[in-house]
């Protein structure tokens, strides 16, 4: 048994325990220290992920391939970016406690386990580790009614989704006698060998995972939780877990159930279309930026699901490119949102942004770049994300998906551009507070990535291609 396969996870978890101990022992102002240590732990883990060899271990429960490596790096980047954004925010909101980075860290351990899972059992345990930490984080501002409500909602609905997922897993196990991905793939070599019960189990699994990526109609928690949670937590929710859950969905659909494509393709298509349409329409009337971004993320997951519905390595590559692009663009947008603070109080209405171009041109420019990218306007990175999934859909003849995708992204661009319009053409309101340098740094890094992605898409697309073909290897 090659236990060292999980070395990055083990090291990260051990760091988490250590940081927990340090936080408890130091008592006062340990939040900053623990956050820094957590960032360091992420860095070390990232290096380990990059350098460790791949393989399958733990009796087939855990696998490390190029797909896992790519998504783990993305998860670590997302977690690190959102942790950086939380420093100042948590301080000012009075929720700077050392448990915060520890919970983020354990959630990250869970996510890394998710993308490496090659057995339904590993999948479930890792997913629960991630989810439980997220529930707590959502309610982290416990003196805040909205935050507690968000945590409770997330928890109850998440428990329901977990129940469905578990039921689906038990169906699959009951009908096939195994939970191992490799054995399942072998056993389901031809669609004829899959009984109806097993496929219903797969549908249940899809539903459980669709909840995690907040795809319609299992998205209902998203706007409330995004809005209610402290913004630093929302940043985290909107970045790393999305990548992890989507990657998990990709692996589950491609590896054990890849041969059943004809059976689940329609289900994914329906979920994808529902998400795209909902994401485009529901966001139009929103006045709260966080809520708007919640709907936006639903729409984005819908676009990414197009690639999954295609079911070919090309489609999966599209999804991965989309995730790479999305994580940077999303972190950047949230950096801008977290900078919205007036006289010490966080503000989150769209109208609070009015005339930002005059009061803070740098922030307005960054925000505008992210909005244009989210709308998918070339040559920003968001355009390439959409391009690759749409191309894959067209190549496989899924014209309906591609056309609906283009239509909804036209409708969706309305509300992104509205933010730009509010920032650049409305009469300026009172200036926002001076933003801490960390926010500027994150916004600049992600902005540069978003802006200049078109220069060197080659290596990233190639990496995504390698990772995607690892799923089919």
């Amino acid at each position: 048994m090659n236990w060292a396969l999980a070395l990055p996870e083990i090291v990260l978890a051990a760091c988490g325990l250590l940081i927990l101990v340090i936080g408890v022992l130091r008592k006062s102002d340990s939040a900053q220290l623990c956050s820094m240590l957590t960032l360091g732990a992420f860095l070390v883990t990232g290096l380990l992920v990059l350098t460790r060899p791949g393989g399958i271990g733990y009796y087939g429960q855990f696998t490390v391939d190029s797909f896992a490596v790519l998504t783990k790096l993305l998860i670590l980047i997302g977690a690190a970016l959102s942790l950086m954004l939380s420093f100042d925010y948590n301080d000012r909101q009075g929720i700077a406690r050392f448990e915060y980075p520890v919970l983020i860290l354990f959630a990250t351990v869970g996510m890394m386990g998710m993308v490496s899972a090659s057995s339904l059992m590993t999948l479930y345990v890792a997913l629960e580790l991630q989810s439980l930490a997220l529930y707590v984080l959502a309610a982290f501002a416990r003196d805040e009614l909205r935050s507690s409500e968000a945590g409770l909602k997330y928890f109850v609905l998440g428990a329901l989704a977990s129940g469905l997922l578990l039921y689906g897993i038990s169906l699959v196990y009951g009908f096939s006698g195994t939970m191992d991905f490799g054995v399942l793939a072998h056993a389901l070599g031809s669609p004829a060998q899959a009984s109806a019960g097993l496929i219903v189990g797969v549908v249940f699994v899809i539903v459980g995972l669709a909840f995690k990526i907040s795809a319609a109609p299992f998205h209902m928690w998203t706007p409330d939780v995004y809005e209610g949670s402290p913004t630093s937590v929302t940043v985290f929710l909107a970045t790393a877990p999305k990548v992890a859950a989507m990657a998990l969905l990709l692996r589950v659909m491609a590896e054990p159930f890849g041969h059943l494509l004809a059976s689940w393709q329609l289900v994914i298509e329906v979920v994808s279309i529902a998400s795209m349409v909902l994401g485009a329409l529901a966001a139009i009337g929103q006045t709260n930026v966080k809520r708007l971004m919640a709907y936006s993320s639903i729409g984005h997951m819908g676009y990414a699901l197009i690639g999954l519905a295609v079911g070919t390595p090309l489609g999966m590559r599209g999804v991965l490119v989309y995730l790479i692009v999305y994580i940077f663009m999303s972190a950047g947008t949230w950096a801008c949102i977290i900078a919205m603070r007036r006289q010490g109080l966080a503000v989150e209405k769209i109208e609070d942004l009015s005339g930002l171009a005059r009061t803070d041109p740098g922030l307005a420019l960054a925000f505008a770049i992210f909005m244009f990218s989210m709308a998918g306007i070339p040559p920003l990175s968001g355009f390439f994300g959409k391009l690759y999934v749409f191309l894959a859909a067209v190549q496989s003849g899924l014209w309906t998906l591609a056309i609906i995708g283009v239509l909804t992204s036209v409708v969706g661009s309305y509300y992104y551009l509205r933010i730009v319009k509010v920032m650049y053409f409305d009469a300026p309101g009172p200036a926002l507070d001076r933003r801490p340098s960390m926010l500027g740094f994150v916004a600049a890094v992600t902005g540069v990535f978003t802006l200049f992605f078109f220069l060197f898409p080659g290596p990233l697309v190639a990496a995504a291609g390698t990772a995607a073909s690892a799923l089919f290897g």
Partner: protein
Amino acid sequence: MAPTFFFYLFSVVLVLCAAMVVSSRNPVHSVLFLIGAFFNAAGLFLIAGAEFLAFILVIVYVGAVAVLFLFVVMMLDVDFEQLRSGLQRYLPVGIAVGVLLLAELVSVLVGWHVHPAATAVRFAPAPAGVSNTVALGELVYTKYILLFQAAGLVLLVAMIGAIVLTLRDRRSSRHQRIAVQNARVPGETVELRTMALGGGVPVADILRPRLTQPDAIDDDPLEPTHHGGHHPADAHHAPEGR
């Protein structure tokens, strides 16, 4: 014959108990029915030969979890009638969804086709001389070590979560601060006065020490355990309706 009989007995009682859990009006009764359901499930485990699981179920769920539930239900003033007020409204929808789902599942079960591997697992004979507990232990600490440790992390996160969300230093709690006590000098607390004969006692001056400092005690720098401290409630978000 006997196992079959008991299987159906436990199963029927289990389903009835579960139905009563959600339908009974008195929350205490609900919890008691839940305990009943656990016992029956334990019985089912026994029939299947999983005595370890049966006992774990009774010890952990009945002994700890359900009793804790009972305490919470009895001690907290939760208005259960209000919680149930949506029942009438959602009942038709709930029933419709339930019936549909059931119909779908039944239609699946009609074409029941179990993979041979699954059947093989069920009929695999238990190795002789290995008790349930030993078998579980051997698996959990070898083959499933990763999952076992991950489950441990899940519990740890649950614990951290419980502490983060609930533990707080109450302003009303008072601790002994030896340093403060030792640093006191008589002049702070004791005052000598010459009383006029027959003039009565000026109440205010005597009962109150000159230096009262309840606030100073709470914010004492010698006791910096404020990670669970109290924070201004309005600091998080601008209040906003949906």
